[in-house]
């Protein structure tokens, strides 16, 4: 029987559009309305042939053998206990219930807990630590903003409905003219599809956004005359023109993206952007927001902040207190330095999205590795164990945080494929199994069948009180 499920939130990008209508027939997804092309694909993928329906263990010849959940959970639990510094990374595509459960597991295991922000908007966190985050919810942009700046972000590709729902085109309460009433400035090294929607496009020299922000701030501090003739490839007149638009705005909003976080200076490109927002507030209202990538990549930052006080890169190995310092406790640095001895890839694909020179130090280092993901991804193809889980937003609900940290309650539209577990159920079971193993005397003693034991090196028991 066909059923149309309305108000469904989309598990693709940080825009978290929650107006999807999904038509389901006998547990199969037939049609998706209102979603962008990528979101639509997620729903269709869920119903496609060839999905993995049971946990699998990689064999020496590279093939996979189906195993039971109990076996997969036992492998994972034992690995977490025995490893000296296991890394649990991912969470781009899970709900907050799963993240909270993973937090309990990681704390009990003494693991490093990290999420995809580590390679995405982690720099924005560093900037927020240093400078704060004068932001707003997306409705404020829709209802009030008459000047919108996309800096180093390309929503036309990364957040396909962002411009129509929030940024450029919507008619809000005080912005009844929609796009006609908004001035849009795009700043990017490439002339992107987003730039085509802009009133003003500033083509910044790649890697020099920091200097361009400084020039903007000089204008805001009254030093327009001292701005050099060209800054970061942008002529002074264009900078002054953009500043005039900003100052004349009633409500200015800056969206920034990976262009700032992935280039030289990383966090400082964001931190100076935030300082520009502080400056602009002397003239008019101004807010800023990170264009978070995944639908719930804001989630782990939020959940772990209330559990541990840190949003990401959380080193729980000390047992007594949590420690965070990206550059040391961040996944890519841990991989680069060979500082971990077990790896769980959950709701992400380190195999595809880490630089291969970093990933090969995990995937090729002979350390045990588990991938938890509904699909076969690159990390899964080199993992010892691949555990499929239900797709959030399709097969299970839960709370997810939109890019503006607004919690969106997701809905399941079909039952989990083949009865597979949700992330939360899986982590709870891993936790239970860890308790059983610990009670049975399994502990971290510096030995593990993949590692070379250090002779004569004896650990101190009872590490903390």
């Amino acid at each position, binding site marked *: 029987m066909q059923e149309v499920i309305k108000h469904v939130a989309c598990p693709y990008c940080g825009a978290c559009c929650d107006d999807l209508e999904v038509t389901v027939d006998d547990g199969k997804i037939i049609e998706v309305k209102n979603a962008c*092309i990528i979101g639509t694909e997620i729903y269709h*993928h869920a119903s496609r042939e060839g999905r993995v329906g049971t946990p699998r263990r990689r064999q020496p010849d590279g093939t996979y053998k189906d195993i039971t959940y109990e076996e997969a959970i036992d492998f994972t639990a034992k690995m977490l206990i025995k490893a000296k510094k296991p890394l649990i990374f991912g969470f781009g595509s899970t709900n907050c219930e799963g993240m909270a459960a993973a937090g309990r597991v990681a704390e009990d295991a003494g693991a490093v807990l990290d999420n995809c922000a580590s390679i995405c908007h982690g720099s924005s966190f560093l900037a927020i630590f240093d400078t704060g985050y004068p932001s707003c919810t997306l409705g404020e942009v829709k209802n009030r903003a008459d000047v919108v700046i996309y800096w180093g972000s390309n929503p*036309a590709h*990364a957040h396909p409905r962002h411009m129509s729902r929030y940024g450029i085109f919507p008619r809000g309460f005080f912005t009844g003219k929609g796009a006609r009433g908004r001035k849009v400035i795009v700043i990017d090294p490439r002339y992107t*599809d987003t730039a085509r929607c802009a009133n003003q496009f500033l083509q910044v020299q790649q890697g020099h956004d920091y200097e361009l922000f400084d020039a903007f701030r000089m204008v805001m501090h009254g030093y327009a005359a001292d701005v050099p003739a060209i800054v970061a490839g942008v002529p002074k007149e264009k900078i002054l023109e953009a500043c005039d638009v900003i100052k004349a705005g009633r409500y200015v909003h800056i969206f920034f993206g990976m262009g700032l976080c992935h280039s030289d200076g990383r966090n400082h490109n964001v931190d100076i952007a935030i300082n520009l927002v502080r400056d602009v507030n002397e003239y008019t209202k101004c807010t800023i927001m990170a264009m978070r990538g995944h639908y719930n990549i804001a989630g782990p930052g939020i959940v772990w902040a209330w559990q541990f006080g840190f949003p990401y890169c959380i080193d729980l190995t000390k047992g007594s207190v949590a420690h965070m310092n990206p550059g040391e406790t961040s996944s890519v640095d841990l991989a680069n330095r060979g500082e971990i001895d077990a790896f769980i890839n959950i709701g992400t694909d380190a195999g595809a999205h*880490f630089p*291969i020179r970093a*990933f090969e130090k995990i995937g090729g280092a002979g350390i045990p590795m588990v991938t938890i993901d509904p699909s076969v991804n690159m990390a899964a*193809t080199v993992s010892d164990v691949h555990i499929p889980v239900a797709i959030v937003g399709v097969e299970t609900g839960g709370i997810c945080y939109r890019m503006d940290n607004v919690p969106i309650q997701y809905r399941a539209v079909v039952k989990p494929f083949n009865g597979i577990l949700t992330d939360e159920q899986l982590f709870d079971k891993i936790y239970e199994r860890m308790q059983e193993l610990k009670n049975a005397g399994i502990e971290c003693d510096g030995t593990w069948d993949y590692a070379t034991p250090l002779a004569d090196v004896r650990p101190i028991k009872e590490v903390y009180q």
Partner: protein
Amino acid sequence: MTVLHLNMVTQRAVEEGEAMESGKTTQKYFDVCSIIEMNADDFKELGINLNTVVKVTSECGEVFVKSTIGRQTCPRGLCHIRQGVWANQVVPPRTQSTGEPQYSGFPVTVEPAPEARVVPAVELVQKACNKWNGKLLWPM
């Protein structure tokens, strides 16, 4: 033979996003991600036809991809490979102690390699991890 010295960035594209959700082992993902986009003048300087395979080399590796100009235009001197397996063969893993690799803004050389084979994703990843056994278990 011409060798271009370019600055490379890697970012999301909607085609890449859609293909990723179909699956990274699919032909679709292979087709949309294993391409390099560059400025038309730079492309002309290479003296090749559209879709000719080129070799992209950075400080930490090399990758073979098809060459295009791209709708979202790069200025001269800049090139772009969509984020994913192929781009990450050459992205330097250095993070400036922030945790984030150098995904945008690193020097590469680009040179024609018309005879070369563009390697599928699984093969690239499994080879790097010494887990390649000579055959693709996932049909594209």
